[in-house]
């Protein structure tokens, strides 16, 4: 670190959580991210806005990440990345190409000093000061469930389904198409906004009624969403109420959000099952949808009555609420880890990276002797 940065002052370490839709960024030891921005870049030549996760191959991703991190460092974080440590909060199920390219960009293009990658499910528990819980991350691309037992992620019990924000957005766009013309031209962030402001998850009793053909129930009031000052998007009450229903409807494999949680508990040792059921943590931006948590709980109890989960012998579920907004719980965990000495002890230094030219990863048998 250069001398002029000041020696006595506390070091600031950048903590980033690069999500598929939003990137949370801030500094270690702080209680909230400084910024939550969309994970997309506007390319200089073509003025085209591209999402980071829309990459076609590694080289494409490299260029996208160079652009995106440049924006992060010089517009938001305002730090020269050279010779600085960086903390990345990342899902254990992150694609290898993404994490390897990210490391390549950080080490060889931005020349950072060291990189600490923390698993998002594990660190989500740090703000709660507990070490055993079932972490349900409902993000943009997918929902992932990983039980954490005594501070260790139980990987063989992981569950993941593409039931998340992106699927809701697609459903919403499709449904709106029937009552609005030219909806396909509306930008993604408008759809996002309609979802956040107009839609909600209805309680279970109403959902059951809606499924019946002779239901007498009225949907919630229709809405008119103003667009660009002159246009209006009609959002019928039916769509507002039922757009997220599919998250709780079993698909052809009899899988949905609630079964994922119970399946995951089933795969864990008997002794830990009750403890996990009584420590459930919901994270990710999608769980902030109005009514989501209440419905999620109802669905868990409903599934418990089915014959599949009889042997679980669970009687109640208990939920944690993190001292943060749900969409940055994992980031907050990373910021807490970053404030400790873990950064110096566990991070991957530049020398190590260039010697190995790869990151240690749990599926790699060289790094993980526990895989048989």
């Amino acid at each position: 670190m250069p001398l002029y940065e000041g020696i006595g002052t506390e070091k600031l370490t950048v903590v980033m959580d690069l999500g598929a839709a939003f990137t949370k960024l801030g500094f270690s030891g702080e209680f909230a991210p400084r910024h939550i921005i969309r994970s997309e870049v506007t390319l200089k030549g073509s003025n085209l806005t591209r999402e980071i996760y829309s990459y076609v191959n590694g080289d494409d991703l490299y260029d996208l990440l160079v652009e995106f991190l440049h924006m992060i460092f010089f517009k938001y974080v305002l730090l020269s990345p050279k010779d600085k440590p960086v903390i990345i909060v990342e899902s254990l199920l992150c694609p290898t190409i993404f994490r390897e390219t990210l490391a390549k960009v950080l080490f060889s293009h931005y020349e950072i000093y060291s990189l600490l990658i923390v698993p998002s499910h594990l660190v989500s528990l740090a703000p709660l000061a507990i070490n055993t819980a079932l972490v349900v991350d409902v993000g943009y691309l997918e929902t992932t469930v990983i039980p954490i037992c005594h501070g260790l992620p139980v990987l063989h019990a992981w569950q993941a389904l593409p039931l998340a924000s992106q699927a809701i957005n697609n459903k919403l766009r499709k449904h709106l198409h029937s009552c609005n013309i030219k909806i396909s031209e509306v930008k993604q962030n408008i759809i996002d906004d309609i979802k956040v402001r107009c839609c909600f998850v209805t309680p279970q009793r109403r959902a059951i009624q809606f499924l019946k053909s002779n239901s007498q129930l009225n949907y919630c009031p229709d809405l008119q969403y103003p667009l660009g000052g002159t246009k209006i998007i009609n959002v019928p009450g039916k769509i507002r109420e039922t757009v997220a229903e599919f998250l709780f409807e079993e698909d052809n494999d009899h899988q949905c959000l609630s079964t994922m949680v119970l399946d995951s508990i089933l795969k864990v040792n008997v002794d830990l099952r009750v403890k996990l059921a009584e420590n459930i943590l919901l994270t990710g931006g999608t769980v902030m949808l109005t009514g989501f948590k209440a419905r999620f709980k109802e669905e868990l109890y409903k599934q418990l009555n089915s014959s599949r989960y009889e042997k679980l012998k669970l009687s109640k579920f208990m939920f944690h609420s993190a001292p943060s907004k749900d969409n940055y719980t994992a980031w907050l965990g990373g910021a807490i880890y970053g404030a400790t000495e873990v950064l110096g002890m566990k991070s991957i230094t530049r020398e190590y990276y260039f010697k190995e030219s790869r990151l240690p990863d749990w599926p790699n048998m060289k790094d993980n002797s526990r895989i048989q």
Partner: protein
Amino acid sequence: MSNYITGPDVVKYACSCGLLKPITRLYFCRHCLELRCGFCVCHEVDSNYCGKCCENLPSAEARLKKNRCGDCYDCPSCKQNLSKRAATVGPKNPEDPKATPRKVYYLLCLNCRWSSRDVGIPDQAAATGSWPERENVHAARLQEIIEMYKGIVLAEKQQKMEKDKKKQRRFMTFTDRTGITASMLRKRIGLPDIPHPLLKPKPKEPEEAVAKEEVEEFPEELLTKPINLNEITTLEQRLNLPEWQPTTVDKLFPIHKQVSVKRSQRCRACEHNVSKPEYSPTSIKFKIQLFAFYHIPEVRIFTVEPLRAGKQCELLLKFSNPTQHQTVITFLPLFPSEDSFASKEIKELVPDEEVPSREIVIEEKQPPSLPGSQPSSLLHTSLSRTPSITVKPRPIKQAITANVELPTSNFVLLPRDDAAEFDDSGDTHNIQDDTKLVVWRKSNKAVIRLNITPLENLNIGDEVVVGFTMQHIYVNTITAVESKEPQRYNNNVKVFQYLGKIVGSE
């Protein structure tokens, strides 16, 4: 010039990293004599400033204020600047006839008319500072948790160190021989045990969070009552306040304005700056500006005949010399096949009689520096910058769709002279030009003729791209120690022209 701002970029130069960019987006490092671009230089934060009040923030202060200006605010509703408005209100005690009306201030957005009065922020008596700040409600608990984790990790570290220490001990101590330790002795005598001064107390464990059976209740009124979208914040508004993410507009609070940075760019190969702005936020000047536009001859397309596949046509290119030194331009093939290919052919030229001596203007703007010189002794190795990592240049992927008949002769470009505009004394400048090559010439500019042939297999509507290597003589005004003469180099730059589309036959 406007073409460089609005595009499309019809002439591109190949940067040393392999990217093609217009000349205005390139730097030219005078020390390693290579083109650099924003992608392959090392960016650094130079100084922080607030974009609204143009106040310079020292980096320590900016860090303390979380990279935000203390005085300026952004509108939480539309992200524009908030203005401070003054209003007069009645005196504190209206009975007193001598009391003067007071002035109070509030914040107003002139774009969306949001004001601090909308959300119930009390008007302030002073214009600057003193606006109420909000705290994170979980701050105390989170601080406690951070302390706990710090303690745990520190204890772990100490344990590890202790283990290492124990292994190293090879000597017999007194207690080993007698079997009695100091603390045992104290106990036997009946004195209280004093804790070891170096041994820290065990980290305090804050209580674990307790899970609850209840979750956020579903707001039943949502089912029957129509909602007013104007009262609900948009996703962007919520994310602008990541700490609170208010769902209703009455909880929006003004946001401190994020400061901006001035950046300097550094060449990765030689660690010299290629661009460095002046520190003052109000200044738009540079201390160092090694832009390629001021060093490399600029190529523009003058005109081109209609392009037809397989047919030879004429391309007129205009070259202009931005430097104070005369230069000679030679055309070379884009990718030389001979083994003589070297990206940089640094060969010192003997100044010949063609160049009048007055042309060599030695400008000693910078202290002489050598690529191989030792760093200053003031910089201790551990404190100085670590050398940059050079990324392997990527191959140029641009497909060439036309052949150029490269002229064998070269031509001279006169130095740039701002007064030449007003000089009417002929345009020939007594230069013997190859009339086949040079069509027109005036001061530091020349138009040359090239014959190009678009490839046979092109269809109507296909883009025609030609390219060649332009070799020009670059006079480096940074003088080396051993020779006071400015050094002259042959510098090669790959230039690509996007000529347009193939048209049909006549």
